[in-house]
């Protein structure tokens, strides 16, 4: 009975496929408003006629051009992460099939680069389909409609992510927020401009190594201007951005006033023996978007 009902719900498969293609297109080509706002503020802060200002101006022009031309902001269209919020009894296998079809089409249309490499042979022949690609996460929710959140995270910024097992002796960083602050700032200094800064950090305190990174990335789905409900973490998030911007690393590591655009910290429980701080670095080309779908699977609302 439930299956029948859901089959009927998924019957406009074509709508769903088109909605996913549109979600991928917009994610790849348009910077969400909340992120664009902080980028523009960063541009204004930089001193005139410096290479930092020059970099920020090219970034500004790139944001405009990508949107106008409907072409990827960055040629590295990243790991495709899609979070699927669905009602109970949802047909995940069918969704995956449709989603893969959409990814192939989005690749053929040039919204995505051929970006899925066989780790053993080095071959990159598929249209972004392979073990782990695209990366889908299914989450059951109470709403009757499907909500999708998408993130395209490039390799350059992924490479500068870091995970610290606390205590971290080289910095005398202990298992408290003071220690957490130390390792976060250390990761920023180590990243320099290599992750295409100014960047944004998603951070998780706790969890195991796997869940830690996962939850760190989850923080990147938060809006730039949101405030952490935990007062201590809210304070730390703000302080990290201010302090990071005193390091003088600047856009692209050219030197300058903006090294970091934002910092979002989440927490998971840990084992008594472990205390991880997982840090996920997102480049300035912060590509994330989301949609809610109507019952016929067409897009009803954009989330960012």
């Amino acid at each position, binding site marked *: 009975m439930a299956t029948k009902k859901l089959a009927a719900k998924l019957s406009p498969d074509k709508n769903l496929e088109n909605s996913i293609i549109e979600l991928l297109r917009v994610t790849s080509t348009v910077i969400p408003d909340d992120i664009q706002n902080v980028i523009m503020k960063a541009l204004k802060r930089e001193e005139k006629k410096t290479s930092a200002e020059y970099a920020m101006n090219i970034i500004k*022009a790139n944001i405009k051009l*990508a949107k106008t031309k409907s072409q*990827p*902001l*960055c040629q590295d269209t990243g790991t495709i992460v899609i979070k699927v919020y669905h009602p109970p009894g949802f047909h995940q296998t069918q969704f995956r099939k449709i989603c893969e079809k959409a990814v192939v089409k989005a690749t053929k249309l040039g919204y995505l680069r*051929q970006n899925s490499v066989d780790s053993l042979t080095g071959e990159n022949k598929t249209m972004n389909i392979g073990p782990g690609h695209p990366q889908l996460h299914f989450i059951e929710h109470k709403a009757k409609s499907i909500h999708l959140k998408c993130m395209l995270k490039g390799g350059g910024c992924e*490479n500068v992510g870091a995970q610290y097992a606390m205590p971290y002796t080289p910095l005398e960083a202990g298992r408290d927020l003071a220690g957490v602050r130390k390792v976060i700032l250390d990761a920023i200094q180590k990243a320099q401009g290599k992750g295409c800064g100014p960047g944004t950090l998603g951070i998780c305190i706790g969890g195991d190594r796997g869940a830690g990174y996962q939850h760190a990335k989850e923080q990147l789905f938060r809006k730039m201007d949101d405030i952490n409900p935990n007062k201590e973490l809210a304070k730390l998030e703000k302080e990290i951005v201010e302090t990071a911007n005193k*390091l003088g690393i600047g856009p692209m*590591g050219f030197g300058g006033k903006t090294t970091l655009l934002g910092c979002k910290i989440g927490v998971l429980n840990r084992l008594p023996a472990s205390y991880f701080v997982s840090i996920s670095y997102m*480049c300035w080309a912060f590509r994330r978007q989301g949609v809610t779908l109507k019952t016929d699977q067409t897009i009803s609302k954009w989330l960012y």
Partner: protein
Amino acid sequence: MKTLNYPFKREEILELKVGDMVLITGKLFTGRDAVHHRIHKGTKPPVNLENQIIYHCGPVVLENKDGSYKVTAAGPTTSIREEPYEWEVMRDYKILGVIGKGGMGPKTLQGCKDYGCVYMHAIGGAAQVLAEKITSVENVYWRDLGSPEAIWELNVVEFPVVITMDAHGNSLHKDIEDSSAIKLKEIL
């Protein structure tokens, strides 16, 4: 703002200094991980790279119906992965320099000094602005490496870069890394 026009000359490269903003007009050859790896293993490049510039880039390229190509996104990729190999390419194939992002390390800096090369930093993530500067695709080599890894011969007009490592031993990356490390130490 300085300019470099094709055919590029070694003397002009030697004049460039860290911090110079340069617009390049002429020709670039893309080459990233697989190309450097193959050259390092002993295969000669399919084109003469003397006095040429290598661009660390894996572009998004669409094939037109007439068989020609269109570059739709072409920002730089992280250069440090070529750190083990780049100095050899400078020595063996007499390139003038490389364009990439994130900077490179001491081996490449020494290579720049020994062989008269520069490291030019393009703006990472600015794939559209940079693709606009590519007027046409002249040729493609080593296509078997896959589209992002192949060598694309690109014609460019006023391609914007910042010199971050020059032929005289200066590296903006090293300077910023050192100064930010000192600041971090003070803060912690």
